[in-house]
């Protein structure tokens, strides 16, 4: 094994350990952080409410394109009535949680990393330490909790908007019967499928927020370091989202 590869593997292991240790410290800080709900609400606003437009737009177009694509394929079998089933299950179980997590990493995760990274670079975190204020409790934990709460809600909004987008294309433009579209969707979806989507979105929310906060907290205190940390946030959380998606799907099946 070459020197570079060995260093890369070692760095990966170190990063995993660093994230793990940080996760435990973060969890320990979460309970006391709950006593300052105002901080958490501000982070729900930052991570959730301000991602609303991009989530709804993406959901709408994802649903519309699903409607088109599934209609085209199902039409070859003369089974366009199954459009509702296909779209509802695809959005609920896979596309809703995964696409929302990827968008969330790009929209909210990068903001978290660069914000905390700049706090680190301008010695704000050190100053808190000096004042005996725990930066994990006051900076990291509210942001983590905010992301954790915002993700399932964003996913649900994405899925519902996507369903109506698919309905818009399938029923209004392509002529699938309105009643058939919804009754087929309803008969195929069980409560278990909804649970699967919600569990996935909570796990993705925790992972993306954890990675974003951790990268910011441990970023190099330079302009270049913050940039690299932000890039790593997007790469790591995207890969982790897709990897965990496979694992969670296998568990739920």
């Amino acid at each position, binding site marked *: 094994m070459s020197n570079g590869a060995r260093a890369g593997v070692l760095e990966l292991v170190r990063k995993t350990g660093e994230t793990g240790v940080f996760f435990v410290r973060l969890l320990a800080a979460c309970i006391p952080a709950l006593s300052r709900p105002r901080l958490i609400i501000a982070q729900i606003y930052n991570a959730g409410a301000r991602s609303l437009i991009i989530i709804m737009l993406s959901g709408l177009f994802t649903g519309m394109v699903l409607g088109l694509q599934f209609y085209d394929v199902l039409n070859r*079998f003369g*089974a366009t009535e199954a459009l509702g089933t296909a779209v509802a299950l695809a959005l609920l179980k896979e596309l809703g949680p995964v696409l929302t997590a990827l968008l969330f990493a790009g929209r909210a995760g990068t903001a978290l990393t660069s914000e905390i990274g700049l706090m680190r670079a301008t010695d704000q975190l050190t100053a808190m330490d000096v004042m005996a204020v725990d930066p994990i409790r006051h900076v990291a934990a509210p942001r983590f909790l905010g992301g954790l709460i915002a993700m399932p*809600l964003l996913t649900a909004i994405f899925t519902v908007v996507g369903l109506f987008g698919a309905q818009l294309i399938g029923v209004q433009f392509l002529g699938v019967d309105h009643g*058939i579209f919804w009754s087929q969707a*309803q008969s195929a979806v*069980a*409560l278990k499928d909804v649970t699967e989507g919600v569990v996935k979105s909570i796990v993705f929310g925790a992972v993306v927020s954890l990675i974003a906060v951790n990268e910011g907290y441990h970023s190099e205190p330079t302009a270049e370091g913050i940039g690299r940390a932000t890039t790593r946030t997007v790469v790591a959380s995207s890969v982790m989202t897709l990897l965990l998606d496979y694992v969670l799907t296998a568990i739920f099946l």
Partner: protein
Amino acid sequence: MRANRSLEIGTGLFVLLGFAALLFLSMQLPANGLKFSFQKPIGYDVTAQFDNIGDLKVGAPVRMAGVRIGQVTKIDFDTNTERAKVWLRINPRFNQIPADSSAAIDTEGLLGGQYIAISPGAMPTYLTNGSQILETQSALVLENLINKFFATEANKSHGSGGGAKESK
């Protein structure tokens, strides 16, 4: 104070919207969830009784000559007649359906959902609110057809040996 207020309103809106979406997904979408119909179709109600409704569901379309004229609003079991009772809401635009029309449950496409097809009769009186379609035809259940087919095949080969082919 001003900025704080708009932050709270924004967060509140987002959380309410999120929970509304979750509620929709968990209660409206699954078949075993609670349901409240949010758009009642207008029209008059007609009932029909079937021996077997197969896979028919509430919301399935009612068609006449292939054109959608209404939808199924309720399905129940009639304990008096031991048959399935189906409520159809017909669009008031189609108010001249002969009273002796017949209703059949058809399947849309190969895998599709089932719908009610109404074939017009010849009587000069028309179906109105509360009237019942008397002549009905049950859903074709594919498994039953296959079972019947195999049963007759088995009878043929058991009963008369190779004679089945000659008699045909």
